């Protein structure tokens, strides 16, 4: 590892230009560290070659956990622990009284799937209160798009390459 860690910031003011630049950069085999945009740019992840998210798979598993928790809980409380006769409902087995439990089973499934997925999202994207903001340029939250590229080899050639991609600004930054 080299001690100096230089990156290049190419700033764009249009998402179409950005998309073209991302495609050109990938074609030229430069490594894109990150892209900062003020809003979701449709198709940017595909253009950057980012692997698809597995959040939905997580949510499915969390939903299954929620369903299991609800089933276990109500079986334990209503059938095993104290099978009371409440208004003539058959509490002899879980299946016999199941229709009454379905609303809870459904809600618990949704609750677990939704909340655990959101928490997973926060953890994976490192978001929490009092977290220091990471945007390299304040304009990226308003109307500018920034591509961060790791610097290797000829710096001046790199700069001229990004200027040709329609960047309004190209900067070399020392990152610590």
């Amino acid at each position, binding site marked *: 590892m080299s001690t100096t860690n230089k990156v290049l910031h190419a700033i764009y003011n249009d998402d179409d230009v950005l998309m073209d630049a991302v495609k050109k950069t990938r074609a030229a085999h430069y490594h894109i560290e990150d892209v900062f945009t003020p809003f979701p740019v449709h198709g940017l992840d595909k253009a950057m070659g980012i692997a698809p998210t597995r959040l*939905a798979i997580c949510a499915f598993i969390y939903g299954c956990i929620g369903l299991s928790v609800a089933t276990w809980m109500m079986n334990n409380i209503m059938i095993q622990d104290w099978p009371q006769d409440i208004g003539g409902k058959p509490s002899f087995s879980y299946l016999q009284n199941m*229709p*009454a439990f*379905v609303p809870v089973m459904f809600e618990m499934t949704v609750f677990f799937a939704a909340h655990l997925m959101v928490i997973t999202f926060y953890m994976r994207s490192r978001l929490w209160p009092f977290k220091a903001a990471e945007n390299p340029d304040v304009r990226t939250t308003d109307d500018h798009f920034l591509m961060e590229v790791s610097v290797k080899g000829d710096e001046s050639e790199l700069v001229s390459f990004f200027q040709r991609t329609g960047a309004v600004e190209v900067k070399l930054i020392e990152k610590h």
Partner: protein
Amino acid sequence: MYTISSKLKTFSIVLMVLGLLGIGYGFLTAPKDIKEVEAILAAESHGHGGGHGEAHEAAPAHATETHTEGHAAPEAHATADSAGHDAGVADAGHDEKSATGDAAASHDTATASVDSASAKDKAFSTQTNPESVDKVEMGNNPVVNKHEAHVDEHAEHQEHLEHVFHQLQNKPWAALYVACIFFLLISMGVLAFYAIQQVAQAGWSPVLFRVMEGITAYLPIGSILFFIFLLTCAFHWNHLFVWMADGVTDPKSEHYDALIAGKSGYLNVPFWLIRAAIFLTGWNIYRFYARKTFAAQDEANDDSNYKKVFKASAGFLVFFIVSESIMSWDWIMSLDPHWFSTLFGWYVFASFFVSGITTICLVTLYLKSKGLLEYVNTSHIHDLAKFMFGISVFWTYLWFSQFMLIWYANIPEEVTYFIQRINDYTLPFWGAVVMNFVFPILILVNTDFKRITWILVMAGIVILAGHYIDFFNMIMPATVGTQWFIGIPEIGSVLFFLGLFLLVVFSALTKAPLLPKRNPFIEESKHFHY
């Protein structure tokens, strides 16, 4: 332009011929008199162990057999001194088939032909032993009251035979009815989806409009066949609708049913036929007009035709939701005239709506596989699959809401509907939930799967079969009761209507180019990408 392949034509004609043979077989093998029923029942019981067979033939022992689930009253068993009765306990499986009718029919004095009465009886009384009739608490129940005078076991046996006779006679008719209404409503589901897409100004679906129009081409033919079927009911060629039976509304008749008589302001044959005619005509007018105007848009220089279709579709949807609701009461719920449910219309709608969308998906996949739908990509298919998934869940929501509310409150006059279905139709009743909910939700929840042809075809076939069974569950218990079976008459009816459906739909698809030309949203739809 699409041209129907000769293979498909032959295939559908073969289906129709096979179906007609099956339907004919069903009508020919239906018993013509009570003696035949007796022979059938005797043969049936012999196959299930001799002990029960004896009991079955000996009327006294037969009358003491209690079927109603869980209430096999000990007293009733104790009084049974027939040797055959001991075997009767072991014969529980057999009881499902024939003794249900026995127990029910022994009460069935007031309305021997009224099948739904059997369900009512089951809930009202748990004992069928004539000697202990005075123990029956529901003394104010007219059915049970009449029963007291009815101690002659032989007559009771005869009545049971008559009951089974009517059920068996209904069988081929009911099989035909389920298939007929199922395919009619599939084309209605497609038409409703088409109107919604027009009104919603959907940007993705215009490339599929011609496919939908092709499928709805079954509507005029299906409507005519269905209306003819309704006429056969009205002319008493069959006994599917018990409220049409003679004397049901006449207080002097032995068939008098106060509940049905109270509803006769609505449930009477002329009004019923007029309503059916209005609904079928209204739906067909919209279909005809929308298809014609939509085709004219291809040649026009402005969008006035498009606007006409838009307005017609909006009007149709208002008419549709009212007529659909009433249709479900008339054609399905009135088979059980003692029972009512408020969300029934929605439930029926969800069932045929998802079937319609599934049909669109399957026909699209077929045409796409022939290379005829140039602009249909996996994103369009993906959208259809999402609708299949979502409306399947919607159907389940309504199915469960109807079931759970009634199960929870357990009011006798409502709950008999489900008791009969759960006891006598255990596998179809729960199987429909598995096929229409569990299977689609596990298969179609995956985004990638929603684009894979063979998975969608498999899911589509399961969904369509599941909704056929759903209609089977709605119609059969009220018409054939415990005598149900998915045999030659049922499969034959499905094959006949499937063949007709395929022939009509794919012939209609040849009549117009598969891609609309001047639709305002067609360019967007061609480039639709998700």
